[in-house]
């Protein structure tokens, strides 16, 4: 997977520390870069690229690139990836100038919006052309941001995946688990940025700092090798007594790992233990042993060990792995298959088991899978965002004509790709929406024929005679006298019923109608009289509102 061309790297680069560049694209990306700048955690060139000048103005990054200055006039892309892409194409010289002569280029972007999803693939391609190793750290939008943004993000993700050597993907939905629900939104976003910054730092330090057991970029890419995978990342640092165990515990606590549960399914796991001079072998052994409990035996553990004087008396544990989206969702809906944490179903109380929260939005799966039948012709064409030949041929940014034509070319394959996604979107929701609609549409047809079974009629008759055979019937009879308005209606129904019976409908037809009428009953809940409980939360069990008096509901059932 790594297409790191060693012949292109300058001589002697392997001995010197690799030069790292971190590019933040769009709002989310620049936040991450800000965080890294403030924390001064990585020794790297920090670049912030955005279409919006106001955001750039606030940015702390030493190098700032305004994307598409002439085109956008300093205004953001407004959630349109096409605009973001065009803007990046305008400024590609500037971008190349800023990021060339680096060995590793990190690109951090929040997908789903305009600049992030539009410009990041362009920058990734420029970065790839400079001959550097390209690592993309991207965030997927919150599920509440809507399907459109999600589709845009997925689209950008696909473009990025082709260009990046490794992709680290964070789900914003999971970020919510980083903090307590009562914490402010500011803190939530801060935490998310911090986590991404942490992962950037970890990746760069793991791969660059010399270690006792060295982990290379190849290890990193094999840990992350998973088609359309989501990154599982955990980082923990602790000091004091029992610091190894504490650090591992903290690393496992990361919501991206789901307290270690997601690790049960990983095939490759990269573990890096770092500490100061005081790090002992026993500690490392303890950490690895403890970790072994969370990981199945067949997992390929890529182990790295480093001694870093900067850490002092602290121990840091980093876990990096990836999991396919399908596995992730399967895990979210089902219990972990591993024997380690097996909830005993048979021992559970018979009440509805609490739904295991599904942090990753499930509807992503159809949206993701749907394009594949349509996509092949598109994917087979080399979908470069711009042609490198033209790129070299057009030195000036100001020449508008070739650029716009270029943009058209670039946009064409993307738009065709958008279509299947839109199709998939259209196909899917109706399947959900139609079900109730069909039922509602179907019910009027059957509803005008009062559904009668002979048994019900017998009961009603029995109720009239006042015979005490059935207690239910007796209650009906009594309650009818109380609620006089119900009586004429019932008489009417019964007379109709007699006519109806004379038409000799087959028994199966009656049964079929009965079942539709039963489903209809659940729709008419709101009108029922609940007495003093009318403004409380209804207690609905099997479609019945139990706040409605029992005798009233029984009467309804009998009438049917």
């Amino acid at each position, binding site marked *: 997977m790594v297409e790191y061309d060693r012949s292109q790297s300058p001589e002697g680069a392997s001995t010197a520390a690799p030069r790292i560049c971190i590019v933040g694209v769009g709002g989310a990306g620049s936040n991450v870069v800000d965080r890294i700048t403030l924390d001064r955690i990585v020794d790297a060139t920090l670049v912030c690229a955005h279409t919006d000048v106001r955001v750039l103005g606030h940015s702390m990054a030493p190098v700032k690139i305004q994307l598409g200055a002439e085109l956008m006039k300093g205004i953001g892309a407004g959630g349109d990836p096409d605009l973001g892409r065009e803007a990046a194409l305008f400024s590609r010289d500037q971008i190349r100038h800023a990021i060339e002569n680096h060995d590793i280029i990190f690109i951090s972007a929040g997908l789903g919006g305009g600049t992030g999803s539009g410009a990041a693939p362009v920058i990734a391609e420029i970065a790839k052309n400079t001959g550097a190793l390209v690592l993309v750290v991207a965030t997927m939008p919150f599920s509440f941001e809507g399907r459109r943004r999600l589709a845009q993000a997925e689209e950008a993700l696909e473009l990025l995946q082709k260009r990046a050597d490794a992709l680290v993907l964070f789900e914003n939905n999971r970020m919510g*688990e980083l903090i307590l*629900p009562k914490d402010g939104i500011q803190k939530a976003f801060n935490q998310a940025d911090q986590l991404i910054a942490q992962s950037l730092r970890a990746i760069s330090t793991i791969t660059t700092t010399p270690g006792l057991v060295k982990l290379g970029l190849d290890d990193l890419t094999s840990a992350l090798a998973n088609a359309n995978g989501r990154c599982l990342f955990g980082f923990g640092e602790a000091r004091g007594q029992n610091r190894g165990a504490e650090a591992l515990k903290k690393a496992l606590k990361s919501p991206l790992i789901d*307290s270690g549960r997601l690790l049960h399914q990983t095939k490759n796991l990269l573990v890096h233990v770092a500490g100061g001079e005081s790090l002992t072998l026993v500690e490392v052994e303890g950490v690895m*042993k403890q970790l072994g*409990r969370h990981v199945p035996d067949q997992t390929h553990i890529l182990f790295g060990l480093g001694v870093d004087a900067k850490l002092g008396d602290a121990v840091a544990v980093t876990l990096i792995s990836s999991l396919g989206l399908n596995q992730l969702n399967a895990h979210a809906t089902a219990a972990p298959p591993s*024997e*380690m*944490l*097996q*909830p*005993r179903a048979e*021992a*559970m*109380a*018979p*009440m*509805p*088991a*609490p*739904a*295991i*929260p599904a942090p990753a939005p499930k509807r992503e799966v159809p949206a993701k899978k749907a394009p594949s039948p349509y996509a092949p012709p598109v994917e087979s064409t080399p979908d470069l965002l711009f042609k490198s030949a033209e790129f070299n041929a057009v030195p000036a940014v100001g020449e508008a004509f070739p650029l716009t034509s270029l943009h058209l070319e670039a946009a064409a394959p993307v738009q065709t790709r958008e279509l299947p996604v839109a199709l998939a979107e259209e196909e899917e929701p109706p399947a959900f929406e139609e079900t109730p609609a069909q039922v509602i549409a179907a019910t009027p047809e059957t509803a005008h024929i009062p559904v009668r079974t002979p048994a019900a009629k017998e009961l009603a008759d029995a109720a009239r005679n006042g015979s005490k055979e059935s*207690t239910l019937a*007796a*209650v009906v009879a*009594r*309650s009818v006298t*109380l609620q006089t308005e119900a009586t004429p209606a019932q008489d009417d129904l019964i007379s109709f019923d007699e006519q109806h019976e004379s038409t000799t409908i087959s028994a199966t037809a009656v049964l079929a109608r009965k079942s539709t009428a039963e489903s209809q009953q659940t729709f008419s809940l709101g009108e029922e*009289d*609940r*007495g*003093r*409980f009318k403004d*409380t*939360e209804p*207690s609905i*069990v099997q479609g019945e509102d*139990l*706040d409605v*008096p*029992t*005798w*009233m509901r*029984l009467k309804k059932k009998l009438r049917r």
Partner: protein
Amino acid sequence: MAKSTIYAGLEIGTHKICVVVGEAKRDGAIKILGVGQAPSRGVRKGEIVDFEKVQTCVNDALVRAEDRSDVMIRNVFLGVTGAHIESLNNRGRHRLPDEQTEIGEDDVEEAKEIARSVSIPQSNVFLHSVTRQYIVDGQEAVRQPIGREGRVLEADYHIIHGVRGRVQNAIRCVREIPLEVEDVVFNPVAAAQVVLTREAKMQGALMIDFGAGTCDYVLYEDGMITASGCVPLGGDHITNDVSMALQIPNGRAERLKVEEGSVLYDEVPEGEMLSIEDDTGLILGEIERAFLNEVMNLRTKEILTQVRVRVEDHLGRLGAGIYLTGGVSMMKGVDVVAREVFGIKVTRAGSAPVSGITATFENPQYSAPIGLIRYAQILDSEKPFLSPLKRLGRRMQELLSSITL
């Protein structure tokens, strides 16, 4: 240092608010010092809907309890209930490291932690997590695993959880009074501590706390809590049914239910009439007694059926049968209906004998608040005993560590 501790239990019920002050002696005995009660307003189905009304009522009850017990109440154990509270059983499985054969304290902690890290909805909060048993290499019902030889240790937990916001609301309401909430306890768990004897728990028993707003239950099997929960139906529903069937106001229906009502109607002679009076004592009309009883019977049967549905799987293993407690358990004939529904022995029970105001503990209405005292006592006895000096030392240590951090 006193040899006994005084606890206060507060139950905010749908029908009444009750504060019980009790003294827990070192030998395990409980003496009830005083009970304060006030009719409840602003509570529906066991949950607080009107803060201010509830606070006024709690204050009433509190003043009465303080008066009678001559104790100033600052901390309470708060009983909560509501339809949002659910429970589940979970096992945490822990493999011992290869070179270790004896189970140590750390292994037990590890197994506990795994068992407790069950995923509950994000909005929920743990109310209780009770150790049911330990399992060592498949051998069940181990009470004390430390020091045993084994490879795999499992901790079996019963976890009760509820919606965070709703639990917090109850706590906040009490804090504003102001009272400090020492712990939040799921009502039936508290009530079971005084209603069910040790033998009953061992044989297997289902305790149903049939209250005005909710019907809470706890099921014990082999001495271990196995299921618990809350059906959001209760005595108020019976009253509501009566009031709507007879078309009389709610207050009148409640009185009719308590004074005349029964859930047995088979033996009522045909044509026996009851006169309904309005608030001024004028006779509004007459109804058949059998009809009133039937309306109540249908609802009671339905509520108990709802409980049955939730504990269906465990019903075969209840040697001690069913214990009915709570206000509605005083209704005439409710044990007969419960027997019809569950098909096993039914006992109507209040709290087990405790010393103090004798009239109180026999009343099943007070099972839950008295249970809170017992629960508090059990909770304290599980903490390691510390001499006052050590306690002071520990407090100092905590203080110091909080400064250095």
